[in-house]
């Protein structure tokens, strides 16, 4: 069964929607010849003064006659930070969901998935000023069920408004992610400063695994307007009157160029990009994404 966004929109709270999407993904994974993402790997660290005695791997001492501290269980757990753009432009969407709602569903489903396999999940709501420039809200890493519920509540409570300060939010995320982590950025990347791509690349340069879910409304991709329209910016005071039919060709060219340039530039920086439209079933999108990551 496909989880159509329109259907999801009718399901109610984000917790329900996100769980439904997560279940859809899991169903897809079971049908898949792959068995999901494995993050297991081991690591021993030679004991040094200051290390917890209780963490000494006595079995290894028995074999090797050296003290090794068993660290892998704790340190190989995935730390995933979901960065959701809640700027004004993400509030656009005249269909079943706004871009922000769609991004929230995807983020919530990912949070379920990650916490289900024991990974820690954090959330950063990017937007205008909040707890930090460009960060409206932040939820630290955790993997408990209550944490996920808290994360979902935060997502549901976020509203798209204000200007995009994604670079600042990404810097904040890089700071909070600490060591290597999976950073999932859900945004339309409509950044007036043009610094968002640079910030993503910077994030990747800090050895974070960066996944960009570039979310757009179908109308932004197809520009299907006919009547004379005064286009109002959702983030600032800009506005313009235009004949959509007359500028459609030019608009689509510009949009294609933007998407293509973004994708290529980030691909060169080893940033995985998934460009999605809000009319696509989110479970399919996530399934495709996970399958691709496993194949890689």
């Amino acid at each position, binding site marked *: 069964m496909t989880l159509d966004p329109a259907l999801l929109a009718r399901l109610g709270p984000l917790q329900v929607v996100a769980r439904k999407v997560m279940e859809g993904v899991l169903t897809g994974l079971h049908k898949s010849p792959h068995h999901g993402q494995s993050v297991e790997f081991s690591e021993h660290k030679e004991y040094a003064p200051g290390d917890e005695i209780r963490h000494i791997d006595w079995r290894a001492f028995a074999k090797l006659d050296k003290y090794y501290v068993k660290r892998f269980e704790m340190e190989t757990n995935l730390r995933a930070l979901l960065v959701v753009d809640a700027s*004004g*432009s*993400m*509030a*656009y969407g005249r269909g079943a969901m706004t*871009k922000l709602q769609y991004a929230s569903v995807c983020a919530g489903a990912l949070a379920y998935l990650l916490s289900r396999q024991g990974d820690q999940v954090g959330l950063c709501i990017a937007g205008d000023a909040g707890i930090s420039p460009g960060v409206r809200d932040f939820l630290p890493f955790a993997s408990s069920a209550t944490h996920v519920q808290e994360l979902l509540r935060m997502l549901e409570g976020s509203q798209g408004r204000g200007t995009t300060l994604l670079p600042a939010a990404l810097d904040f995320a890089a700071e909070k992610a600490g060591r290597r982590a999976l950073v999932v950025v859900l945004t*339309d990347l*409509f950044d*007036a400063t043009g610094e968002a791509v640079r910030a993503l690349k910077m994030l990747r340069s800090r050895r974070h695994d960066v996944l960009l879910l570039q979310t*757009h*409304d179908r109308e*932004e991709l197809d520009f299907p*307007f006919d*009547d*004379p*329209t*005064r*286009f*109002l*910016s*959702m983030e600032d005071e*800009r*506005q*313009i*009157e*235009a*004949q959509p039919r*007359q*500028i459609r060709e*030019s*608009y689509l*060219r*510009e*949009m294609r160029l*933007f998407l293509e340039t973004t994708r290529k530039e980030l691909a060169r920086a080893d940033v995985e990009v998934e460009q999605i439209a809000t009319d696509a079933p989110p479970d399919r999108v996530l399934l495709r994404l996970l399958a691709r990551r496993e194949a890689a």
Partner: protein
Amino acid sequence: MLQFAHPAYLWGLLGIALPILVHLFNQRRPRPLSFGAIEFVLRSQRQKARRLRLRQILLLAMRCLLIGAVALALARPSLKPHGVQAAAASGPQATALVVDASFSMRYRLGSRTLFERARAEALATLDRLGPDEPATVGLCAGPAGFSGGMGAPSFDRLAARRLLQSAQPTYLGSDMTGCLAAAAKALGESPVAGKRIIAFSDLAAHSIRLDAPPPLVPPPPEAPAGTPGIRPNVVLVDAARGSDLSNAAVVGTVVRPSATLGPRGYEVVATIANSGAQPVSGLQVSLKLGPQTVAKGFVDVPARGTARKTLGAVLPPGVVSGRVELARSELQGLDEDDAQDFVVHVPRDLKALIVDGAPSSLRARDEAFFVEAALAPARTGGRIHAQTLDADAAANVPLDGYDVIVLLNVPAPPKAFSEKLRQAAQQRGAGIFIALGDHVDPDAYNDSLGELLPRPLHLIKTAAEPGTSGAEDHAARFGVLEWTHPLFRVFGPAEREGLESARTFRYALLKPEGQAHTLASYDDGAPALIEKAFGAGRVLLYTSSASRAWTDWPIRVSFLPVLQQAVSWLADALEQRQPAVAMVGEERTLSAAGGARVEKVLGPDGQPVTLRRETSHPDDGVVPIGAPGQYRALIGLRGVEPREEPALTFVAALDPRESDLRRVDEAELKAQLGGAGSAQVAASAAAAQGAHGTPLWSGLLLLGALALLGEGALTRR
């Protein structure tokens, strides 16, 4: 000025409001939309804003143009020359196309003649007429107005086209005023209310009578009496398009004997006219006899004036055809009037033997004194060579070589001389002139000359004794004279008195025997001059003396021409009266002498001319003269092969007015045609559209189609 055939369609111009409304609708206040990707909208709009604005304006213009052009085209607009509007009636008009086919339309202007231009423009005008407009075509030439007449306007365009296409210019003059009046009359036969005349002409002043009433279309027959005529719209198209039509022409040629040039010397006086605004200098004039140029000269002709040039030449005897020709290098002008033909009958030289019957050492008393004086070379131009012998000497000379033998008071000649006279007259056609005197014995004369005499002499009558008192009152005078005879033809009515006043004191009475023709008789009825054909020759008997012995006629001025004519007449070398020059467009009746019939007349091109026969004179030929040049007649008796008769040769000349191409004043012409309200003088074919003007609808449709294409191209983008 713009005119519309169907002005109701102009309401369609309101349709232009539609694209304007669409444009304004598109410019209406747009609905607001908060849009995430506004950055791309801004970029696109920046790129296309200027182009889009221009495109919108172009689109609006194309749509307005499309609707406007279609609406205007449906209204069938036409462009009329200024001034025609007032005269133009709306709706269809019966149209008369009048093409000037006069000689002046042969004027070459560039590569075409005025007539060719006029014909082409008339054909184009015919094509432009509306389908509901009947038309008629007439060629204006000659005094009769239209050659071939002008029928009622009809819709038979094919016939009208054929008539125009086959039309050729004539050598005739034209009466454009009469043609316009006739065209107006023809228009009266059409039921169509609108009336229009379009005339194509050189607008030469000579063809238009400014004092004539303007052309009027007669009212319909069913109209009540007293209904005034309708004034038609008249458009006169200037085939020359305002060009100055300068032209030099030979407009007159006079040929006359010139004593200073010797025997058969003639001078040809050519009158050359210049109708141009600039004087012509050094214009070469040539006198040609056949292909040979015998004299040449140069003449200066003032602007709008004439000049005469006299050229002399010694002409051969007989009928001489010649031509006076202008040598001109200009490419434009009238060619046909640059030369004029002439025909002159040059009498042949003749030799006369004067037999003096009463010679005297005193010249004044010599019997041959007056005759010699009359035939002196100074008085005959050297044409008559006279030799005087006394009777004895004359009897011993051979008479061969003499054309005329003049016997003056000669005693009855011996039989041998008489026989020689008889043979000369009968066989060689020599002429014999016999004058009497005291040496003449009637009976001896009758015996000696016998049948040579027109009538036998009877006796000598003395009307009065010369020198006695009252003799002049009793003397005989000429009573009846045959003035039409060549001997007396030179006498005009004013000069006849000089002949009638001569007094004759003594003369011979003749016996009423024989067949002779009395040319003159005295007041008592007795013959004075009597002639008789004898064989191939003639004998002329003067019943009195050629000296002052019996009459005072020899001392009167009338004696000299009669004697000269008599000698020429007898020698069949009479100086013919020069044939009058005929004018093109006239008719000339040719009558052959001696009961012969004018069988054929060859025109200037050598082709036979169709003759007209009068029922009263079936042998005469009436020659319609259609072209300038020389006309030669062939005559013949029935059953005999026709031969050319040089005496009937004549020359036809062009009407000199046709060589004057000065244009009529346009303002005066318009006034004559009824004023600018109903008359228009157009300078071009396009302006000659008359009430219709130049149609614009096809161009408008093309414009509309282009606008449609442009609109489509702009919309697709």
